């Protein structure tokens, strides 16, 4: 019954060959770049996909970014010329860096695109020398959502803080919770301090929890007093876990119209701060993707995001769509990059930890 060593070696070689083949699927990057067709001068006005489009999500299935992709993808397929599916691939690792790098290095033929969080990827780009992508070189196709920051206080530990002025008075005594070092909940109080000059952000006391759930538990355990959360994500916990006292938006937010904005309370440079902290998710393509392809993708995406059924489905999934077309999204990403690349102190802090 026993097999010979020769047979054993044979099985092993077959296994190795199969695995090597798996690893080589898709060919090398150099090979990919050499196969770019057609050039912009010989391009048709519209691109018709001939095979499935891979939509890379650098985050886990079931996460906020993944769900937006899953909501929009079927409607996007509907408005894309041809009859090709959009297949979602979750490529995890390095807090989104691995997936974003995969999108950046993909063949720029329209068949690989992605959904990224530009602010997080900009911060990674500015603080981590190993990062091999450049957010500014990736054509932005549109954005399905934007999270608006809101200052949340803990009703169990600081019930007497009812507005921004109350908070400023005791700001250095309070404990600021974040959902992770370098996340928007951490960047927001830092940027507000540096840009407004109302307080010294270096004197704030931060505790970096793991994820929003960690922050909610910390509020319940009375370990933290303040959190720069997101209106869209935390309205469900309003009053019971969080008190909302200030919204980072130029005008009042429809989900909490009773909460004053940064502009209203007179925070210096409020609009600049608000734009830099607008946490959008953006569909992007690899650099050098021909314009006729990105135009087709962007226009069909825009139609999909404005489809009433898509908006309704998103609302039911508690992931409201606030569509931004390619032009608006690019403008916002560029502004964001400009603001953050000038924040030398924050960048240094994030680099050194």
């Amino acid at each position, binding site marked *: *019954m*026993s*097999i010979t060593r020769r*047979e*054993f070696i044979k*099985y*092993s070689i077959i*296994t190795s060959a199969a*695995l090597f083949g*798996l*690893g080589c699927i898709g060919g090398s990057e150099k090979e990919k770049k050499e196969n770019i067709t057609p050039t912009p001068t010989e391009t048709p006005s519209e691109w018709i996909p001939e095979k499935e489009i891979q939509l890379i999500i650098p985050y*886990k*299935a*079931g*996460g*906020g970014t*993944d*769900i937006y992709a*899953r909501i929009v993808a079927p409607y996007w397929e509907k408005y894309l010329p041809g009859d090709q599916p959009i297949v979602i691939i*979750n*490529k*995890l*690792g*390095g*807090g989104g*860096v*691995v997936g974003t*790098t995969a999108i950046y290095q993909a063949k720029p033929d329209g068949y690989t695109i992605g959904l990224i969080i530009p602010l997080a990827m900009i911060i990674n780009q500015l*603080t*981590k020398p*190993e990062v*091999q992508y450049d957010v500014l070189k990736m054509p932005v196709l549109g954005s399905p959502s934007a999270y608006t920051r809101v200052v949340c206080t803990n009703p169990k530990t600081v019930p007497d803080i009812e507005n921004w002025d109350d908070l400023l008075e005791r700001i250095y005594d309070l*404990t600021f919770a974040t959902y*992770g*070092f*370098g996340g928007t909940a951490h960047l927001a109080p830092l940027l507000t301090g540096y840009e407004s000059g109302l307080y010294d952000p270096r004197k704030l*006391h*931060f*505790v*970096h*929890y*793991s994820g929003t*759930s*960690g922050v*909610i*538990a910390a509020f*319940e*355990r009375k*370990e933290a007093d303040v959190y720069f959360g997101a209106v869209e994500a935390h309205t*469900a*916990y309003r009053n*019971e*876990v969080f008190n909302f006292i200030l919204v980072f938006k130029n005008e009042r937010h429809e989900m909490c119209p009773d909460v004053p904005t940064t502009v209203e309370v007179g925070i210096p440079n409020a609009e600049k701060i608000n734009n830099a902290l607008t946490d959008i998710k953006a569909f992007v393509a690899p650099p050098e993707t021909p314009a006729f392809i990105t135009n087709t993708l962007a226009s069909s995406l825009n139609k999909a995001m404005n489809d009433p059924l898509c908006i309704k489905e998103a609302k*039911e*999934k*508690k992931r409201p769509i606030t569509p931004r077309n390619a032009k608006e999204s690019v403008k916002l990403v560029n502004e964001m990059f400009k603001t953050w690349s000038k924040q030398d102190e924050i960048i240094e802090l*994030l*680099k*050194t*930890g």
Partner: protein
Amino acid sequence: MLFEVISIAFSQIFTSLGMALLLFGIVIGLTMGIIPGLGAMATIALILPFTYGWEKLDAFLLFSAIFGSTTVGGSVTAILLNTPGTPENIATTLDGYPMARKGKAAEAIATAAFSSMCGGLISLAVFIATIPLLRSISLMFGPPEIFWLGFFALVIISAVTKGSFLGSLIIGCFALILSFHGLNPITGTPRFVHGFIYLYDGFQLIPVLLGTFAVSEMIKLSLERESIAYEVVKVEGSIKKGIKNVLKNRYLFLRSLVIGYIIGAIPGIGGTVANYLAYAQAVQTSKNPETFGKGDPRGIVAPETANNAKDVGQLVPTLSLGIPGSGTMAVLLGAFILHGIQPGPFIIRDNLDVVAMIAVTLVFAFSLSCLFVMFLGQYLARLTTIDVYRIVPIVLVICFIAVYYIRYEILDIFVTLLFGMIGYILVRINVSRILLVLPIIIGPIIERNFILSLSICRGDYTYFFGPISIFLILIMVATIIYPFIKRKYKLKKMSWGD
């Protein structure tokens, strides 16, 4: 209200679609559990996107069926191949595999299955009875308590690990150093990544686990013998013996159940610690600890009871606070979001129907999967008599595919091979391979919660010594000194006898 939603869950399961989903989930869960490396987390993550657009109760029926059956599937691989099918089966290898080599694989599998089933079902009863208290239970454990618990787990490893003391110390420290690679858990800054983005996430558990156990075991088997079992497997009476093993050790069973449930209920400590702690208490409270590691059925009863109890315990922080108790629970929270349920402190209040569906499905999943395994164990046990040169290539191919599938990362396969070689060296120098894996799991937990506690306390170190922390410290001290006291007492008794 609770009884109403439970009856809705029952009626949903007893439809043709419900039964089909339940059986499909159990078969998939068992299969993925048996395949080394692919536990509930990977399986649910794979299935999750396909359920988009499903009725939420159908989706959670399927997830729970998978979740409830993978761990018992993993025990089969741990017993037959000395390779934990899931990270939660690490301790089962310690006595399960020696039993398999003695030709008692079917008995070992039956013991594991029956312990798992009873552990899961009793824990579920406790879970349902304590639903109103779940939130307060979860909130009792903050960063300092989790820090001490992680520290306790490290102490336990050193207390029960056999083999060369110096070698164990060196390997344990080496593994702790490895656990610090990757992004700093608090500041997110890269540490020891040497310019490789691959190392941003540190050494991934599954390649490390499969390399250390599966690959090294296959190297060892290929070099040593013709089959896993020394003698022909005895089939008759094995299921009965397995059940007897559990009933005979009912106090050990109950202690392990409590340990599993509590460890599972503590947010952030992870389930892998539970089975090892349960095993450790089995050794420490035994009158004849020298039989452990040589095929003692109590070494299976303890970790396997704790395993399913821990699975239920993990639901406590997940459903009461929205804090995932493990990687699997993090994926389950993703499933909540995907189906329009906001994870957080109000899941139970706002979605009692889903919670009831999870609990009811788990009752069926625990029972049916364990019964399947108990009866299939007799046939699966025959694997141990097959020529190893047939098994080795198959196991290696499955391991490599499993490793690659999880992240589509070819480098993970090389890491698996590397740890396979390190694992084999450890076997040769008589050092427990568990020491290479557990510190990689526990290290980041201890570090994260230590730094968190330091930043919360603002210099007031009494924060580290709350009532629960002091209790944990006392148990830790007792764990360290108990074997010495016991030995001294034994010596004294012997001298009296003389």
